[in-house]
């Protein structure tokens, strides 16, 4: 505790405390980490027949938990036509609320509840405008009790001031999935430590000393959730040597178990989690979008959603957008339903056909083209939600149009995020490649993108508190309308529309090769739709591919091409597939990069020999065993429990090997890494203790995969003679 009366700094952590109400950690401008306390009562609401509410009052008064009860009539349930009388239950100590509410819900299941299971940080955000790493000025008493709290910046600031975080990276010397780690490697700035895992006592003593000396803000681990921290905690208990993983004294860590669940039609596995108090723990291997946007993106996600950093790192962007809506609802005095019961208004099958159509796709015209502009509506669905005011309470009309009406909850939530993303995108577009802010801005922009991408899906998601299927359908309806208007505009300007895919158009007009050639049509589309649209780039050449099964059938969103600035865009090819071996993906990208040197579609055949030589080199490396085995790894997800496979997939066979050899049980949704091998069972699980015998690698299978990937490119570009079998390609790849 700090005797200072006024502090400024960054809000670092916030959680309920059984004694203090809430505990706040502030990274002070004085370089110190301040632990503060604040009274913060929590209110939830119940609705139902008056007699039952009176019974609830009696029950609550009989409980040892101190509460204040009141009648409330000002708040509004968005899904109800009028306001209803509510019982407001004010729980004085935040940490009492979850358990009290569980008791209430069990005893009075027939009542309707609101604001009952809202995350503490969102409640605090709604009252004080706080968010992780908010700049704050705090008045505090000598015992650290907060008497006033003022937030000095906003989550929507483009360049928020950021504190210097002390980061301690910790990881085992060997991936525990692949072998038995012998030591723990630690890094902090220029400091490096290597601590043997056995014997345990010196490990614990040394680690404790390092934690106390460095007092890190962030423990950044690899496998920390699922292996390292559980191991350290077990050892600490076994040897009765407390380990200060938390900064907050006297608290245990927060643990959540592993689980498999369904998401968007596939099984997803989520490992167990370990979270700390007064200090952050992020496990890179268990952080949802780490590979995409890393720490900068996690911090941005936490800032705009108000979720604690440790949660923001582990939760999906969907939970992020839902949290933003809940925070907005609390600010507006809109009730957050505990369980949404409002279902779809009945409609006829004919109405369903008209309304439930999803995004518009205009099949591509198969072929290779030059002078093609790729146009994108900027964040199309969020823009529609904001521009057309689509929200559960604004009752979407049959024909949605841009609206200037008072914005509903969803547009109000999205508008600042959308504005920030557009501003950041514009800034990035004008930023030179060497600018040090570029990587940070890109990570933040990516975090914002994922939130915006999921906000549309959340209108129709089963557990979304403010979802409504009619609103979801209204968004796609206007999306289709906007695309049709854009097509008409393009055709009026003399362009041929080669392809349209939900929010993008590919326009071709001979000679249209400069951004200025596309300016008039962009302006016209903006005028006709009311939605911002941008020129993604102009292709030197782009190839739209046919179906693998029937070369006369076009396939949406399967294309590749080279922009005028030399960058490449690929969709739907082997190099984009998650289960393609890295070697196959790289081989295919090398071919595309060779053709990317062509200035136009006409010049593509000039690069055929170079491409075939490249392919030949890759295939020779494979046959001579010079491709590292890691490059041949295939990663696939288990779609069910192992004993439920009637005809095990290669992934299932690899998981069975792991079970047989190591006893390690894999759950549905987990990913398995393996190599294709000759003979039975045809695979070698990568995480087996014994490395595979390189002579057993099924090179013929990898060769087939490579040729298939090469054929996608060469046939797609129409640079080979029209013989569609594998053999001619073999012929062309041999010198």
């Amino acid at each position, binding site marked *: 505790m700090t005797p200072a009366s006024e502090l400024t700094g960054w809000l670092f952590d916030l959680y309920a405390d059984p004694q203090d109400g809430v505990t706040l950690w502030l990274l002070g401008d004085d370089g110190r980490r301040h632990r503060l306390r604040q009274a913060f009562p929590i209110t939830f609401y119940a609705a139902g027949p008056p007699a039952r509410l009176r019974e609830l009052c009696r029950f609550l008064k009989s409980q040892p938990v101190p509460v204040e009860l009141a009648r409330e009539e000002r708040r509004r349930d968005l899904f109800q036509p009028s306001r209803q009388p509510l019982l407001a239950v004010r729980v004085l100590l935040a940490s009492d609320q979850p358990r009290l509410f569980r008791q209430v819900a069990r005893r009075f299941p027939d009542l309707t509840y609101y604001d009952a299971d809202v995350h503490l940080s969102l409640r605090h955000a709604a009252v004080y405008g706080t968010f992780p790493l908010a700049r704050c000025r705090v008045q505090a008493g000598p015992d650290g009790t907060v008497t006033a709290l003022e937030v000095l910046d906003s989550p929507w600031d483009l360049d928020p001031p950021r504190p210097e975080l002390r980061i301690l990276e910790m990881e085992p010397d060997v991936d525990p999935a692949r072998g038995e780690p012998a030591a723990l490697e630690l890094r902090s700035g220029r400091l490096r430590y290597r601590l043997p895992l056995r014997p345990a006592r010196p490990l614990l003593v040394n680690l404790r000393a390092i934690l106390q000396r460095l007092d890190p803000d962030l423990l950044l681990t690899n496998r920390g959730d699922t292996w390292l921290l559980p191991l350290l905690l077990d050892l600490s208990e076994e040897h009765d040597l407390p380990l200060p993983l938390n900064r907050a004294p006297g608290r245990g860590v927060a643990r959540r178990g592993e689980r498999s669940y*369904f998401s968007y039609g596939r*099984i997803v596995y989520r490992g167990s989690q370990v979270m700390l108090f007064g200090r952050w723990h992020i496990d890179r291997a268990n952080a949802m979008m780490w590979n995409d946007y890393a720490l900068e993106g996690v911090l941005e996600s936490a800032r705009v959603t108000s979720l604690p950093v440790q949660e923001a790192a582990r939760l999906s962007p969907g939970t992020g957008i839902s949290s933003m809506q809940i925070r907005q609802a609390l600010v507006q005095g809109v009730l957050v339903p505990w369980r949404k*019961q409002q*279902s779809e208004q009945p409609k006829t*099958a004919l109405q369903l*056909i008209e309304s439930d159509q999803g995004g518009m796709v205009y099949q591509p015209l198969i072929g290779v083209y030059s002078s093609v502009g790729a146009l994108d509506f900027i964040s199309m669905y969020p823009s529609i939600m904001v521009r057309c005011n689509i929200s559960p309470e604004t009752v979407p009309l049959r024909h949605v149009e841009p609206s200037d009406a008072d914005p509903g909850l969803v547009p109000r939530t999205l508008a600042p995020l959308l504005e920030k993303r557009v501003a950041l995108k514009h800034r990035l577009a004008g930023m030179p490649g060497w600018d040090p802010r570029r990587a940070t801005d890109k990570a933040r922009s990516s975090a914002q993108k994922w939130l915006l991408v999921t906000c549309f899906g959340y209108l129709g998601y*089963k557990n979304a508190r403010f979802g409504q299927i009619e609103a979801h359908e209204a968004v796609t309806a206007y999306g289709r309308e906007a695309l049709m208007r854009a097509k008409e505009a393009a055709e009026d300007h003399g362009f041929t529309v080669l392809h349209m895919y939900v929010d993008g158009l590919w326009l071709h007009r001979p000679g249209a090769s400069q951004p200025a050639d596309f300016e008039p049509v962009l302006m016209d589309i903006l005028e006709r739709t009311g939605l911002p649209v941008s020129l993604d780039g102009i292709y030197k050449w782009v190839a739209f591919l046919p179906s693998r099964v029937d070369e006369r059938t076009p396939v949406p969103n399967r294309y590749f091409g080279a922009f005028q600035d030399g960058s490449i865009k690929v969709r739907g090819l082997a190099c984009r597939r998650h289960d393609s071996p890295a070697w196959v993906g790289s081989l295919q990208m090398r071919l595309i990069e060779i053709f990317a040197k062509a200035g136009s579609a006409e010049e593509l055949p000039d690069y055929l020999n170079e491409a075939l030589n490249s392919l030949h080199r890759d295939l020779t490396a494979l046959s001579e065993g010079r491709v590292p085995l890691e490059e041949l790894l295939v990663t696939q997800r288990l779609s069910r429990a192992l004993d*439920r496979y009637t005809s095990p997939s290669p992934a299932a066979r690899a998981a069975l090997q792991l079970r047989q050899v190591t006893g390690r049980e894999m759950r*549905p949704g987990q990913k398995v890494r393996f190599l294709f091998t000759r003979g039975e069972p045809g695979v070698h699980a990568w995480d087996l203790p014994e490395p595979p015998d390189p002579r057993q690698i099924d090179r013929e299978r990898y060769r087939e995969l490579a040729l298939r990937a090469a054929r996608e490119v060469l046939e797609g570009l129409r640079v080979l003679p029209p013989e569609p079998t594998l053999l001619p390609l073999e012929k062309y790849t041999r010198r």
Partner: protein
Amino acid sequence: MNELALPIEPQLLVVVAPHAARDQMLELAATLAVRGPLRVVDAGNQFNAYPVARAVRRHTARMRAALENIRLARGFTCYQVLAMLEQLQPSSQPTLVFDLLATFYDEDVPLPQSLELLDQVLPHLSALSKAGPVVVSARPPGTVVAERLPLLQKLLDGADAVYPLLPPEALQAARRLPAPRQLGLPLDPD
């Protein structure tokens, strides 16, 4: 057995099959729609109007009229499904409930609560089936939620008749025995 017999009598008929007999239920909806109005409660996001329209077209040229005969609403949580069934008034029109248990298998809802909610759903289905035919489709739980088999047992116990698109022995097992792994009951392919 690929087709469902047309329900005529007021009764609660439960169809148990992998994928909750989606194709057969859609075909049934189409056949009924040609004859007159019906109500559809889609509890598993299974109702696809396009195959229904194609099936209707095989029976009649008056496709639009037939599609107008189908009034449907979709429920995406078990709370919504309960609310929808509570709101349905008894009627002589057929009522089809697609994949009733899908939302009750949701691992986010604790099993005791799912069972409790299903207990509230069954009397509504029973009341509706006194006035007109009610066909409910269901599937065994998937591997991730295999412990939720008692939900299926409860539904089968409340049915007037069960239409077995699953092998008879599996269905018998679902009626009698407590735990899925002991049964050898084929779980729904995920």
